[in-house]
C-alpha cells in the first residue's frame, strides 16, 4: 500500500492505494471524477521528490503527493 496526499486547495483527505508503480497510482486516481481537473494541473512528488515520469516503481509505505498550481509571496 502507498499513501497518496492531496496538497493545498485540493482539500481531500489522504488515501491508501495498492500500487506497484506510479502508473498504477495514476490509473486509480483517474477513476475519481472529482480529481479529473486536478490531475491535469498537478505536479507529483514521490517521497517528497518531484518526478517527471510515471515509470517509477513503488514499494509499500511510499508517499505520493499531488501539488496543484502554486503562488507564493
Amino acid at each position, binding site marked *: 500500500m502507498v499513501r497518496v496526499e492531496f496538497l493545498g*486547495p485540493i482539500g481531500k483527505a489522504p488515501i491508501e492505494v495498492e500500487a506497484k508503480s506510479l502508473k498504477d497510482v495514476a490509473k486509480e486516481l483517474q477513476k475519481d471524477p472529482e480529481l479529473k481537473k486536478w490531475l491535469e494541473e498537478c505536479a507529483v512528488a514521490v517521497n517528497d521528490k518531484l518526478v517527471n515520469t510515471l515509470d517509477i516503481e513503488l514499494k509499500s509505505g511510499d508517499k505520493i503527493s499531488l501539488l496543484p498550481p502554486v503562488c*507564493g509571496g
Partner: protein
Amino acid sequence: MVELYTGDLEIEKICGKWYKWSLDKNFGAMVSFIGTVREEKGIEGLSFDVYEPILQEWFASWQKKAKERGAVIKMAHSIGNVAVHSSSFIAAVFSPKRRVALELIDEFVEDFKANAPIWKYDLKNGERIYARDRSQKISGSGILNSL
C-alpha cells in the same frame, strides 16, 4: 532553511537580524525583496498553505547555486492569514559582488513564484478562496493524466 511564521512577518525584526548577521561576513551587497499584501478586489487579506518538506528542498538547491557564486540566500514566508498592508514574504541575497546579488535575487524570486510549493487564497467575507487564476503549474505538471 526557510523561516516560516504563522501570520504576517515582522519584517523589521527579520531584516534587522539578517543585516546584523551579515555585517562581519564581508559581503559588500545585500539585496532584499519584500512582498506585501495589496488591497484589491475587496479582499481582507491573503492566506497561505505551505508544504514544508519540498519547500526546504527547493530552497536548499538554491542555496547551493548561490554558494557556487559566493553568495548566501535567506528567506522567510507566512503560513495562514496575512491582512492587507502586511507582509508575507521576504528574501535576501548577500554577496561580495553587486552584480551577483542583483541577478540572483531576480532569478530566485521568479523561480520562487513558479515552483515553491505554496498555495495562495483570497480572504473575502471570511471565506478562503483559492487564487487559481494567479497560480502557476509546477514544471512537470499533468503526468498523472498522461496515460
